[in-house]
């Protein structure tokens, strides 16, 4: 059993608050990912959980046992670092058995464990090779093998894929999922790559400037982000955020003085918004470029200035005021310079408070 609970965790370096009052519950065998830009505090949080950094405030519990004062060695954790942290003067095999030797396990036991882990990660052929001769992907696999060979209760990973080429990253993502399921180990993973987070996590914890912005399952965070930052950071391309204010009849006026027309149901919601200036958010994939509109539906007049293909999907770019937004071009229609429309559904509309970033 390895539940992890963070209670008001705080860590600062001088005046800088790296981790600013974080509370979180991680279930046993769960795969959670801390996601955020550089400097948001995700790595610091991970290192506090590992015991490599001492927290300045708050508590860390493993299965309701307070571990703040325990050394990393006493927390029964394993860790995979960004730069592999492999011992360069040993070959792959010796690297993997390092933790076992440190625990003074019998050589018979050691051999059994290494064989099991090598089979799991398909490393049988690389065991005898020097670390410096291995391609980056294999190096990371060896680091992973070393971490799991001890059967830890908690597995911690600090941006393990950022140093790898795209090709290896794809392969390793599948390996991670496989390992995590096979071992049923509580896993805490840190990254700035939202694609990794979306593919691997049971739950994603979005962080910014030392605070938790939002926590949720990948699909939930993608479809229904409760915070502006979540919608911005997750998904490629990011959500469209259009600054606007209420117009007549429950429609809204955007920057550049364009009017977005809403269906009756949405108009009611708009009338309930109490603040003057707010943000209209919708994902580009849910803005459909169309030649025609339904009078009672949601629509906006746009002029597509160019098209872009991102991740095999065709998007069109249009301006509202000084800002560029994206919409979905189905069947790669040619945009022309004529004004057309983008239409969208009620459920995909989200309004945010520009100050707090929270949903309205």
């Amino acid at each position, binding site marked *: 059993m390895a539940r992890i609970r963070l209670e008001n965790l705080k860590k600062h370096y001088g005046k800088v608050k790296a981790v600013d009052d974080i509370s979180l519950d991680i279930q046993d065998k769960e795969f959670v990912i801390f996601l955020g830009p550089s400097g948001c505090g995700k790595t610091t949080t991970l290192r506090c959980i*590992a015991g*490599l950094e001492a927290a300045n405030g708050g508590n860390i519990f493993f299965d309701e046992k307070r571990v703040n004062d325990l*050394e*990393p*060695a006493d927390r029964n*954790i*394993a*860790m995979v*670092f960004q*730069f592999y*942290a492999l*011992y*360069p*003067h040993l070959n792959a095999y010796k690297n993997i058995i*390092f*933790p076992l030797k*440190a*625990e003074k396990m019998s050589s018979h036991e050691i051999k059994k464990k290494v064989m099991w882990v090598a089979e799991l990660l398909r490393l049988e052929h690389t065991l005898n090779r020097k670390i*410096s001769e291995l391609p980056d992907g294999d190096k990371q696999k060896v680091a992973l093998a*070393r971490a799991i060979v*001890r059967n830890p209760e908690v597995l911690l990973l600090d941006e393990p894929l950022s140093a790898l080429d795209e090709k290896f990253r794809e392969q390793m993502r599948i390996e991670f999922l496989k390992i995590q399921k096979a071992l049923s180990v509580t896993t805490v993973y840190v990254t700035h790559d939202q694609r990794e987070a979306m593919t691997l996590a049971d739950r994603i914890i979005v962080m910014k400037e030392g605070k938790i912005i939002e926590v949720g399952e990948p699909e939930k965070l993608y479809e229904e982000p409760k915070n502006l930052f979540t919608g911005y950071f997750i998904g490629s391309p990011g959500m469209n955020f259009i600054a606007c204010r209420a117009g007549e009849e429950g429609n809204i006026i955007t920057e550049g003085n364009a009017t977005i027309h809403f269906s009756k149901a949405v108009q009611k919601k708009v009338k309930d918004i109490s603040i003057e200036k707010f943000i209209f958010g919708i994902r580009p994939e849910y803005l459909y470029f169309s030649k025609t509109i339904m009078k009672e539906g949601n629509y906006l007049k746009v002029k597509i200035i160019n098209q872009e293909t991102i991740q095999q999907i065709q998007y069109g770019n249009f301006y509202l005021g000084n800002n560029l937004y994206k919409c979905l071009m189905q069947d790669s229609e040619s945009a022309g310079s004529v004004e057309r429309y983008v239409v969208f559904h009620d459920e995909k509309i989200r309004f945010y408070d520009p100050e707090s970033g929270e949903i309205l």
Partner: protein
Amino acid sequence: MTNLEYIKYARKEKLIKYFFLWPALIILLFLIAYPFIMLIYYSFFNFSFLRPVNTKFIGFKNYVNILTDTYTWERFIFTFKYVALAVSIQFILGILIAHLLQSEFRGREAVFTIVLMPMMLCPVVVGLFWKYMFNTEWGIMNYFVHNVLGFNQVEWLGTERNSLWATIIADTWMWTPFMILLSSAAFSSIPKYLYEAASVDRASNFFKFTNITLPLSAPILILALIFRLMDAMKQFDLVYTLTGGGPGDATQTVSFTLYKTAFQYFYTGEGSAWAFILLIIIIGLSSILIKILNYLSERNR
């Protein structure tokens, strides 16, 4: 830039290059190349600087005389004993102290500076004041040994064995800082995350030291060893001022004997032969160590 301008500029560059080179070349020629060639030349003559008149070419006679003299071998054995003991102690002590100084503590920088000071002194100065410290009657060493610890007074520079150890102590005092400096540099270049990974893997401090620190710093440590060995083999200043080669000729290193031959007896030719023999030995020793160094560097890459 057009091609024409480039050609003018390139020509100017070439001239500047040569202008900077020739002072260094002249120094190399006169201060290194010439003396060295003359050294080898004179070693084949019974040349004496004081009486240059009867100089005769004697071929390898100087070398044969030196190498067949049992006195020579006694001196070599003493020098090897001294070098082996002194350098080993400095090596181990240096590594241990450097390891202790690795951790951050208040006043670390000050301690570091103090620890490095002995190295900055002249060997002659070091020899002189250790000679006073080792004085049997009123030296401070015997003060501690006799008055504080209650042992008999030690005749530091009086007996053969004692004077060997006295020299080793003085030499270690002066040169351990060198080992500390290089070891510290080697230790700090090891990436911290290797230790973190080892911590997570539950390695004890001893395990970390022997399995991470030592293997990864081995190339620089061996380099330091090479420096110290080469230097210790040539030991003269310290012996000259501390013991004067005594008692008798008990602490005469090979270098000291060379000095006597060339500047007391003025057998310049024979002295040159001595110098050359010493050179060959040092080259031999260093080559072996450099091979080890290369092997270790390769393994660590």
